[in-house]
């Protein structure tokens, strides 16, 4: 029989773990527990609740207002893993530097990043936003329309990304992608990148931006990207959206072209 003293000796370990990984516990609480409770209480999905909040609090047609409201809801009320304001600034800067004409977004989710990208695109540019989940896509469309972007600007595609990418050329007449933003399932980063490479849509100077490469993390993706030699890689270090203390990063890949 293990004596209580030995059990007590493990207390410092417990305390250490709790203190060291407190941010992860916070994340667990906010992203899982609160969501579960609210889902049970309201009967709505998380995205729909977010939309309701935005509808009541944001100014329609004002993209900045919608983004701010989103940030407020995500940091104060519930948690949705959008790109967030801090990493969003990196995205904004990239868009301003490169002025892409054709943008592919993988993983629309609630449309936060779509609005963010569409806001700073030049006239005549076009976003193809891919979302797999039907309900999320509905919410995203509503939010995008609310922000004042029409169908010419944002094309929402409700299909899995691995089906969409090979058919982009035939179905949508895309010749070249200037920017690809990846924020869907972290496991799909690598296969989708392979698909993109195979499709020939990437030209020299095309940029691929992948969110959350460190937490939750896409190690295989990073490894492939570093080894393949096709890209110039930069990993922007930041923290996870809406939660301090968890390190995360965005990978910015510049396609160098096949030599």
């Amino acid at each position, binding site marked *: 029989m293990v004596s209580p003293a030995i059990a*007590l000796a493990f207390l410092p370990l417990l305390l250490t773990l709790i203190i060291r990984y407190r941010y992860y516990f916070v994340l667990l609480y906010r992203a899982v527990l609160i969501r579960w409770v609210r889902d049970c209480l309201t009967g709505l999905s998380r995205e729909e609740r977010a939309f309701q909040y935005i509808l009541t609090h944001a100014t329609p047609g004002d993209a900045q207002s919608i983004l701010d409201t989103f940030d407020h809801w995500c940091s104060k009320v519930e948690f949705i893993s959008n790109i967030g304001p801090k990493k969003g600034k990196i995205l904004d800067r990239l868009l301003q530097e490169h002025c892409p004409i054709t943008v592919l977004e993988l993983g629309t989710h609630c449309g936060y990043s779509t609005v963010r990208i569409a806001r700073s695109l030049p006239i005549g540019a076009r976003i193809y936003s891919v979302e797999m989940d039907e309900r999320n896509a509905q919410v995203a469309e509503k939010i995008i329309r609310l922000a004042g972007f029409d169908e010419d600007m944002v094309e929402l595609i409700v299909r899995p990304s691995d089906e969409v990418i090979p058919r982009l050329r035939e179905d949508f007449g895309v010749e070249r992608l200037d920017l690809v933003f990846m924020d869907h399932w972290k496991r799909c980063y690598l296969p989708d990148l392979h698909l993109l490479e195979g499709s020939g849509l990437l030209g020299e100077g095309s940029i691929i931006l992948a969110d959350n490469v460190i937490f939750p993390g896409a190690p295989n993706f990073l490894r492939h990207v570093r080894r393949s030699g096709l890209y110039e890689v930069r990993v922007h270090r930041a923290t996870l959206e809406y939660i301090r203390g968890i390190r995360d990063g965005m990978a910015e890949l510049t396609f160098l072209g096949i030599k």
Partner: protein
Amino acid sequence: MPRHKLKNTASESDGKDNEFSLYYVEVEENSQGGQEKQTTRDGKRRRERNGEVSRRRASEKRTTEVDNKRAGKKHEKRHKTARKEGEKHEKRQRRKNADREEAEEESNKEKKNIKNERTKTLKRDDEKEKDVKKKRKKHVKNEEDNANSGKTKQKDCHDMPLKEKKKKRKKPETTSESESKSESESESDSAPESKDNQAVGVLGSLTPEELEKLKEAVDERKKLIATMRGKPWPMKKKLVVLRSSCVLQRQETLLIISFLYYSNCQKWMKFQRDFENFKTACIPWEMKIKEIESHFGSSVASYFIFLRWMYGINMILFGLTFGLVMVPEALMGKPYGSIPRKTVPREEETSAMNFAVLWDFGGYAKYSVLFYGYYNSQRAIGWLKFRLPLSYFLVGVGTVAYSYMVVIRTMARNANEEGGGDDTSFNFSWKTFTSWDYLIGNPETADNKFASITTSFKEAIVEEQESRKDDNIHLTRFLRVLANFLVLCCLAGSGYLIYFVVRRSQKFALLGLENYGWWERNEVNMVMSLLGMFCPMLFDVISTLENYHPRVALQWQLGRIFALFLGNLYTFIIALMDAIQLKRAEEEIVKTNMTIWQANLYNGTVPDNSTAPPITVHPADIPRGPCWETMVGQEFVRLIISDTMTTYITLLIGDFLRAVLVRFLNNCWCWDLEYGFPSYSEFDVSGNVLGLIFNQGMIWMGAFYAPCLPALNLLRLHVSMYLQCWAVMCCNVPQERVFKASGSNNFYMAMLLVILFLSTLPAIYTIVSIPPSFDCGPFSGKTRMFDVIQETLESDFPAWFGKVFSYASNPGLVLPFLLLLVLAIYYLQSTSKTYKRVNMELKKKLQTQNEENKKKNKLAALKAANELEQARKTGEQHSSSSQHTQNSEPPVSSTHTTTRPPASRGHTSSGHLPGHPQQPQKNSHSNRK
């Protein structure tokens, strides 16, 4: 880095060969300077006979002499060396001839030369043209002119009489240089161009002193010859004087001796260098530590250096105990089984060879030289009359005394090194421009060097950041107080837990340990090692609140863990004391039982009046006391072993297993394990250092009762050196903030000293105040352990010595002596303080002087720049005015621009000093023109 040295010896030796060949050339030349006088003599003698020949020879000699004159000047060597190479063989031959004084042979040879001369002169003209072209490519213009003039002079040379040539010697050097050049070109047709450059490169590696010496020797000779020439002496006298003045007349011997000297010198230098390399290679683990330092920074390296130091200390402790206690007892003492204390008792015999003996140290291990109880109290053993009890006591005291001495000496030495703040101005520039070692010739070394430079940059950046940090002071203070409070709570909690466990275990011991399971028996150890493992982690987490510089944080961390371990240690000691009391009570009972048993033995079996031999009872059956000293030693050994095991297992699980999991599970995990949650572990400097220090404390405490402890510790340190080196290099990552840790070495030492003091206290207490067991150990039968000294004094020394000793130990003498000691210490300390202060002041003075110099230089440079600017401006004005250009700028604006001080330079600038004359500017202007 020694590694570099080793790796580069090959390349260095190559360089040395070159150097050597150069020396050879130099020596030859040197001899030529001397040889020249002989040959000139010959020339004089033969002048009448063969005028032209001698002239030609003389002209050659002259050029060589001119060369010798300027042997030290490196840039001229460039032109010379090619010739030297070419001429070498010819000259060697000629020297032989001169020695043998065989004029005919020489003249024959020279006749050949005459034959060839006509064709040669034709060739020479062409070559000179080529030569000039080459030089045009290579050298600056004026040199070309010289070459041309030299060419013409060269032609004249042949017709000129000898005396004229002698005069020409004093002509400006440039012409003669060019002559020699052109001649060299003509003579050494085949000398490759590349050799020239190479030789020049090697020349640079000659030490200036050697060059100076050579020059001096040559000059002396020349002076002698010059003075002799001027004197109206007959030839014979001149020769005699020359011979007598020179110590080494024969050129051959001079050559040989100097050659030998230089070659030996080279060999000696090479040997010295190799020996240095060998010495660094002999320092144990130096390479490993350097490698670790280059990858993990000096903080991690400091731990390993400390470990190595500790290893050295333990080696000596081991040597003392092993050589003076264990080996004599094993060789000369009574063998196993002869007396009860040297035999396993009957009831333990069944389990004496169990596997558990290996870590429990019971059974046969307990009744061996490894523990106190085995030693006999016989005063002198063996044919050497070795005083074992005395030796045992003195070794016990000596090890501790030696440890004190070493620790304090090392601390004093380290304190010397610290001395004031170091000069950190331009730290980063120094690091940037001077850190690379250009002698590195192997990729692995280069990698290491690269890593070490990067680490040193990181360290410097951390220092710089720390010096520039300014935060909310109140918040920081609050957080620091809070952190300390939390740590104190934690310490108190763990202290209480240990106290509780010890109490419980005492209760178990009273009731008999056999009734309880493994968990209860090992509860104290378990709790202590668990706390020792987890509390530092908690402290580490708490210390992030404090926001200290990592070095300071490390010291705080060390202090806290020190307090924690100290608590553990003292509870352990208290528990041990209780156990000793119990054993002693038991011993009393055994003593009384013993007499009863003996009485029974004799009474029961032997009639009173019989003369039969006394009954022999097997020593295993004789009842004996519970030897508390052995028990103490055994406890310490067990503690050390469990501690070692815990360390290694933690290392294997916490570092290695974790690294393996992180590395290989990363391929199929949903988040990034390497960057994210578990990651690789960092090397825990504070924990490891303290582990080492406390381990050493245990050794010091227990070594008196278990002579095997230093040996065990040696083994442990040896293994952990290799294991930890491997673990660090293969499973750890460098800390995020790598910091310089040269200063913390003395901190380690200070802690070691404290531990040494604390661990000697209980040992001394037990030795002085508790009587030794009656039937085991070298002091059995005495009332106190230190009685052995008195006994020795009485029986082994003459009577007067004992008297002197008793007088000396009189308090009336001892107290003044102590007082004197204290006074001396005080005096030394105060003087050292004064010296330190003076040192600091001197350093400051130097620094301020440096800065002043810098300022002055800056000012001078600024002034010069201003003058230049002005000169240029005035020059422009001049030219513009002289050319009368129409669109010249108005003079007012131009002067304004020149006299305006540059805005950025601030106070140091002084656009135009009021008293400064304008004249030099014009001068400079004219010079420029």
